[in-house]
């Protein structure tokens, strides 16, 4: 008798659980939540979490609420694939927001495409993310070939640099960015004086800095992340090499300041990044909400918010959970996001991207370079 009661209770509990399950839509949030790039993972999570909360408060998706599932790839391609498989097979997510590092995003997006799950990255800028014809792969950021153009134009026309050295960190993102820079430098009639890769995880780049001195570089472009850019710029300044350092969106974090060792080393470092999303008028209310919670929505936080809004918009409009259908809807329809109206092309790239040049100031903040040539 007791046994029978226990079975009945279990069945009832299972039935209830199943009912609750029907009312939620699981969205995976994947990125480096641990590891050296965890600062960016936090930006992803903060943005996605706030967006999901706001969407749920406004009624959810036809009454269903969004539920977020964390996926930590630590910016490791192998772990990213494992995380992707877990999100697809075990968590049964409907869509994925992520990943951060291009080297993680590229293999992970294949897993999502096989599973027919919509995957949008707020930050991976390597062209290969959307160039492989995966029907469910999209992004809400620009591409390195666009970023490299802005970097090269700025270096040649604004900084008037003659002897440009191009460095990278031998990773998919960093080297891709350096290659884009190199390609556009060539079209501007400049040949780089040095093109070399350093090793991620190391701290001593003095030998490379001395080499920069020996080739008399008057501008240094670095494709890579803040964990290497910081020590690199510090050792440049310590060896008396005052050439400007120009980099991409891999150093958009306060952590860059820490890894360089203080504001006096980052002063005069330039970087390309999308027009400051915090200044777009449509996002004002959301930015205020973040600041009230004691969090400055820097870097990719608002990109992550906008990505979650896009996923929600597609879910609402199509009433479908099919990744290809969702992606096709997004590619055909504009979405109102916290970062303004977003439109995608057939590849899944944004139709317009607005890279601008920023400068790190001696207060340790970054600001747009206003005086364009």
């Amino acid at each position: 008798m007791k046994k029978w009661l226990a079975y009945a209770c279990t069945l009832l509990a299972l039935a209830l659980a199943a009912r609750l399950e029907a009312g939620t839509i699981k969205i995976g949030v994947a990125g480096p939540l641990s590891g050296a790039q965890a600062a960016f993972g936090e930006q992803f999570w903060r943005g996605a979490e706030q967006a999901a909360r706001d969407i749920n408060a406004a009624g959810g998706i036809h009454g269903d609420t969004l539920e977020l599932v964390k996926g930590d790839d630590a910016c490791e391609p192998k772990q990213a694939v494992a995380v992707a498989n877990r999100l697809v097979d075990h968590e049964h997510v409907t869509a994925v927001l992520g990943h951060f590092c291009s080297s993680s995003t590229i293999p992970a997006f294949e897993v999502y495409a096989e599973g027919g799950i919509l995957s949008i990255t707020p930050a991976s800028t390597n062209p290969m993310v959307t160039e492989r014809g995966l029907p469910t792969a999209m992004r809400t950021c620009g591409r390195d070939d666009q970023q490299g153009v802005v970097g090269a134009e700025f270096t040649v026309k604004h900084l008037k640099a003659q002897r440009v050295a191009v460095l990278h960190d031998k990773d998919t993102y960093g080297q891709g960015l350096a290659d884009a820079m190199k390609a556009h430098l060539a079209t501007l009639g400049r040949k780089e004086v040095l093109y070399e890769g350093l090793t991620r995880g190391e701290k001593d780049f003095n030998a490379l800095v001395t080499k920069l001195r020996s080739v008399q570089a008057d501008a240094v472009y670095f494709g890579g992340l803040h964990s290497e850019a910081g020590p690199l710029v510090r050792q440049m300044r310590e060896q008396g090499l005052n050439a400007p350092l120009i980099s991409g969106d891999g150093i958009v974090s306060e952590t860059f300041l820490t890894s360089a060792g203080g504001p006096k080393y980052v002063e005069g470092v330039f970087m390309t990044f999308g027009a400051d999303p915090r200044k777009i008028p449509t996002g004002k209310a959301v930015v205020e909400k973040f600041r009230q919670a004691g969090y400055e929505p820097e870097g990719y936080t608002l990109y992550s918010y906008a990505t979650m809004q896009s996923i929600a918009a597609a879910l609402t409009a199509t009433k479908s959970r099919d990744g290809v259908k969702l992606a096709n809807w997004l590619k055909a329809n504009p979405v109102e996001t916290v970062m303004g109206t977003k439109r995608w092309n057939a590849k899944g790239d944004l139709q317009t991207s607005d890279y601008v040049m920023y400068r790190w100031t001696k207060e340790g903040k970054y600001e747009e370079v206003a005086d364009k040539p």
Partner: protein
Amino acid sequence: MTGHIFAQQAVNGLVLGSVYGLIAVGYTMVYGIIGMINFAHGEIYMIAAYLTAIFLAGLTLLGLQSPPLAILLVLAATIACTALYGWSVERIAYRPLRHANRLAPLISAIGISLILQNYVRLSQGARTQGIPSILDGGFHLFASGPDAFVRLTHAQLLIVVTAIISMFLLHFFIARTAMGRACRAVQQDRVMASLLGVNTDRVIAIVFVLGAGMAAVAGVLVTLNYGSFDFFIGFVAGIKAFTAAVLGGIGSLPGAMLGGVVLGLAESFFSGFVNTDYKDVFAFSLLVLVLIFKPSGLLGVPEVEKV
């Protein structure tokens, strides 16, 4: 190629090599005495970097202004703390497995290494941490033009000088003191030494503590020089230092330092005059070459088969 660039690369290599050498000493001492690799050694170095930042912040809070005094105090406190870590590693990962299969302590040391890494990650966060630079400035040597000079920062000078002093102190300890004699006895024949009344467990613990102390010196110096660190720096540094120890002849103290400097110079010169992408390939090719022609390393003593 001009002279000052060559000299600058030599300085770069020497500084890098001194750091490798200091960490390598820990590997070589442990190997010399128990014939095993201490895989948790790189993590001790990483913990020393964190302790440096913590103690430095503490001293600043107490209102200590003088950099030399602060550095000395931080060095002493960090060595004391990491010595405790070194002792614990031996106590937890090695001593209970003293008579087990050779593979067992190796695995348990890898386990300790993972535990320490993740313990720091969870307690201190995964973000890159940093300290404000307290040792600014440096010298312009051989200045012969606006761009032609050799730059040696105060922090770099401190690294080389401290490395030399620590090596001499360690050498003195091993060669001249009673405890050092016991260390040498255990290295030559552990069973015989214990039969003659040497407390071998104590000697092995001391060796772990000394190794950790040297890693702490390296951790403090590197943190002062580069200013930033994260929970993963122990891995790369450990691999490089282990390579240096093998290159110099594992088991030999001067060998570890020589191996470190050779490795540092090789990396710097190859990076500076050939290609940075392949500097690690060059460093490891050098290791392979040395081991082919001198299997016991540069200063290692060939192992005599005991009958």
